Every structure is written in C-alpha cells, then in structure tokens.
C-alpha cells in the first residue's frame, strides 16, 4: 500500500467515525419526530376528553370526568357502543368461520382457476366502502321478512363488514395453512382421524395463532368502519363512528373526544390481546 493510499484510508476511517455519530443522532431525531407525529392526534384527543369546558378548543383551563359521565349516562351513546360491539362480534363470527373454511378448501384441494378465485375473493378488500355500501343497499335493501326490513338493520352492516373482513381472514389463514406440515395431517388420517376431526383436533390448534389474530383483525375492522355503516344504518342501529359523525355536525363538545377514546381503547385492547396471545403461544411451542 502506498503512503498516499494509507493516509486516505486512515482519513476515511475518521470520516466514517464522525458520520456514524451524525447518522445516529439524525436517526434518533427522525424516529422521535415520527413517534410524535403518530401520537399527537391520539394524545390531543385523550387530553380533550378530560376537558371541563363545553367546546373542543384549546387552551384547556380545567379538567374533569364530566364528559365521561355524560357519555355513559346517555342511552344514545351507549346504544351506539352496543351496536358497534354487536356488529363487530357478528362480523368476527361470520368472516372468521367462512374465511377459515374457504382458506382450508383453497389450500387442500386442487381447484380449477385457483388464481382467479383468489383474486375474486380478495376483490372486496380493495373496493371502496362507498361502492360496497351502495351495492349492498341496492341489492338487499328491498328485503323484508315479516315486517323486519333488512335495510337499516345491524345484520346488513354485519354482511357489509364481512365483505372486508372475510378476505382479510382468508388471506391470513391461507398463508398460515400453507405452513402446516402435510405429514402431520396425514399422520392424523393414518391413526384413524376422519377429516372433520382432524381439522378440529389437529389443524385448528396448530393454526390457533392465526385464527385468533384474524378474528381480532375482523373485530377491529368492523369497529373502525364508517362509510358502509353510514349507508346502511338507521337511527336505532347507528354505530359509534356514525353517531360521532352526526353529532360532530350538530355540536362539537368534548363528549366526541370521549367517544373517540372509548373506540380507540376498544381497538387497542383487541390488538394487545393479539400480542399477548401471540407471545404466549410462541413460548408454548418453545421456538
């Protein structure tokens, strides 16, 4: 190595040393910025929900829980919360069951035009909510069974939300089923396990992590959904986001912030459940 080259390499070493610190500092700043950016809307909403004043407006001069009391005392709000939870539960059941069965069929059997079917099943997930909501309103809006009308019922929203949740469950479970060792399923058949028992006793427990996660995702998707619910609900069946939207137009009290916090808490609780369950499952399998 020539002297010049040696000097250069030493120099670049020092340069690299400096730039490592600089880069690290820049990285920390950037990460903090992103974190802040993500947290600001949530933080502000939480703060606002404890505002004692009558308007959603800064500065907050005194704090109280009165809007929380108001929220839980109002049947209109609690009814909307109940609607949201019932619809989310219905969506979870329908989309998890149908999504899992579809994914299992898809994985086990050689269907013709497999790719086309895959795309078709996934299609609703990429269709705008407005389009789906409108489509369901038009297609099923006229159904009436003995005085009970489908349009405006919680059932209609469940059907609509499942159109989004089911493809998601399908996608997750299809990927999960592909990781299942075929020999283990064969071993079950071999030991006398019929297909249905094999599915419930062997396959499902092996993919339980996927099942729980996709069920909670379905639940959360339904809780969050607004546009289709706006199209398909009537006064008695409004979900929390719909009622928020409607009351935002009439009066912007901190009660809205309380609603937002309640909704967000429900969603985060679900996500935490997924995490806890996931970690426990990983530990159990000893990986």
């Amino acid at each position: 190595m020539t002297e010049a080259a040696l000097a250069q390499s030493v120099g670049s070493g020092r340069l690299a040393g400096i730039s490592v610190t600089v880069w690290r500092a820049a990285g920390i700043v950037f990460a903090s910025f992103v974190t802040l950016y993500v947290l600001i809307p949530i933080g502000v909403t939480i703060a606002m929900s404890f505002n004692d004043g009558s308007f959603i407006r800064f500065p907050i001069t005194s704090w109280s829980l009165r809007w929380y009391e108001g929220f839980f005392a109002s049947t209109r709000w609690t009814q909307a919360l109940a609607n949201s939870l019932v619809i989310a539960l219905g969506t979870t059941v329908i989309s998890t069951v149908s999504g899992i069965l579809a994914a299992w069929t898809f994985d086990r059997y050689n269907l013709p035009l497999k790719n086309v079917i895959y795309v078709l099943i996934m299609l609703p997930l990429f269709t705008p909510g407005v389009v789906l909501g409108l489509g369901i309103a038009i297609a099923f809006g006229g159904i009436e069974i003995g005085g009970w009308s489908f349009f405006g019922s919680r059932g209609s929203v469940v059907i609509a939300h499942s159109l989004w949740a089911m493809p998601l469950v399908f996608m997750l479970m299809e990927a999960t089923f592909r990781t299942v060792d075929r020999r283990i399923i064969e071993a079950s058949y071999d030991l006398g396990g019929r297909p249905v028992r094999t599915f419930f006793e062997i396959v499902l427990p092996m993919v339980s992590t996927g099942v729980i996660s996709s069920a909670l995702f379905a639940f959360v998707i339904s809780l969050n959904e607004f546009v289709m619910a706006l199209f398909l609900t009537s006064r008695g069946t409004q979900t929390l986001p719909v009622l928020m939207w409607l009351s935002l137009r009439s009066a912007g009290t901190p009660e809205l912030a309380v609603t937002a916090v309640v909704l967000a808490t429900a969603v985060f609780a679900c996500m935490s459940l997924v995490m806890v369950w996931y970690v426990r499952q990983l530990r159990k399998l000893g990986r």
Partner: protein
Amino acid sequence: MALALELDQVSRSYGAVVAVDSVSLDVEGGEFVTLLGPSGSGKTTTLRLIGGFERPNGGAISIAGRRVDHLPPYKRNTATIFQSGALFPHKTVAENIAYGLRMHAMNPSLIRERVGEALGIVQMGGFEERYPSQLSGGQKQRVALARSLALRPSLLLFDEPLSALDLSLRLQLRADIKRLHDELQFTAIYVTHDQSEAMAMSSRVAIMNCGRIEQVAPPQQIYNEPANEFVYSFIGESCCLPVRIDDGAARDQQGRPVDIRLAEPPSSGAWRLYLRPSRIRIGNEAHGCANTARGRVRFTEFLGDFNRYHLVAGGLEFFCDRAGERQYQIGEEVEAGWDTGDMKVFAA
C-alpha cells in the same frame, strides 16, 4: 391364513412419470420386508399407496385378505412412521400416543394402559408430559413408533424413519426396531436407501429400480445370488469390467488385448464381468487362482481397515481391498486373482 399384504400389479403414475410400475408383492404375517432402491425408484410412493395416501392407477392392494385400494387412510388398519416423526406439536407425548386410540373410540382406562405400555416398549417412560419440541430427534422417532405400535395395526409402514438421525443413534434405533420386531412379531414394510439397514433388519429385501421390483429375497440371497445385473451392482461394492471375448481371449472395449485369463470364458461377444473388491486377491495370494488379471497400480487409498488398490489393465479399471500394510506402490505391476464363483458375468 390370508396374506398380511398383497400387492397385485399395482401402478401409479404422475403425468408422464411412472412412479410405481405394476408392482406385485406378497407379505406374510410377521415378516419384515424392506423396500430398497436408489432415489426416485418409487419406494415412498409404494408405501404411500399401501397406507392410502395415494390411489393406484391400476392393480389391487389387499391387507389381511381385504381389498383396500379405495379406502382412505383412516379406514385402513395400517400405521406409518414418517421420516420426520410427524408428531402433533401441540399435544404432549401421552396425548400423541392416545390420539389414535381415541379415534378408535377406546375407553379411557384402556387408553391409559396402552399409552403406558407403548412408552415402556420404546423405553420412553417418564416422558408423558413433554411436548415434541422438548424431545431430541431420536426420542421423537421413539414416540412416533410408540404412537403407531399402540394401535396394534396389522401393518406397520416405515418411511426412512432413521435417515434424519446421526450414525450412532441410527444404529441404536435400528437395533431397537429389530428387537421389537422379534418380540412383538408385527408385520412391517420398511423403506430405506441404506443397504446395511436393509440387510441388518429384514426378513426379505425387495430391490426397487425405476418403479419396478427387481428381486425379492432374504438378504443373504440378494447378496449371493443377485437376480440380475442391477441388483448385483446396487448391492455391496463391485467392480465392473466391460470386455469383449474373442475365442476365449479378452479384449478391452477399444479392442486391445488385455492380460486377463478366465477359467471358463463366456462365448464370444461383449460381456460385463462383476467382481467384489473384497474377494479379489493380489500379489502372491493371487497365485493359483482360477482367474487372473495383470495390471498396474494407478493409485491406492487408505480406508482404515484395509488399503484399496486401484488397478488398470489396458482400458479396464478395477480395485481390490487388502488388509494390512500398504504393499504395492503406484506404477508397480501386480497380479490379481479370483475364484470363478466370485465373478458374475452379464451380457452387455
């Protein structure tokens, strides 16, 4: 008594690939039959046809006298031990073994008894509450074996159960399976591509090649009386001398004369002579042998118990093994000799 297993002209193809080509095989109760053959010869497919994981394209499969070709695995009285063990990862060892018994609606107290007994047989008592992820490879295979044995099937099917284990464990489990077979007298079909495993364990060996069974016979007979050239060259080590015989004189394939003297030369034409390297004698020991060949030492290998001398004679190459110190140097001319009974001649 009906045969434990009867394959009659069974075939299975995948598109243009004929994986199993009209295979016929009769197995008596209590036999331990090994399917041995090179990779891709159709051993696994044959086993999967017997287990019911694949449907044959033609032919008939009977287990204990009953046609089963159109029954799914859960209606066949067979139990497979897979290469990977295929234990249920979310069930404990005891639950794994109990699973098959529960599927057959056995009562719980009997199940408990059978589970304990099966674990005892494979010497895994005390491991009941472990999960498969907490077992070593050998322990997993023991549990897999116990899970199959607990059902007392009329046929046990093994698909290379030891090939994922290291050598010492493989030898140990191999001995265990053999001992269990002697004690319990189950009927087994055992797939392997390991010759020594096949020779050591089997009452009969079926040599498979290209989807066909080339020969079925007890191990000694396979080794000493191979039915054809494939079996001879596949089993054990052998040297092949492709020669032309003209009026009793041997030439190599280019037609040059080679210094080989045969006591009973085959008729004129092209032949392949096969020799076991362990039966060829060289140097002084070769004097007086009925068949001899002079060659030059090309190179030698030290293989622990013996030295292997690679010889060339004209266009022919062969090798012979000799215990003890290395005696011949590279380039040296030596004589090799063998008895007529140790040579097999096949038409080329």
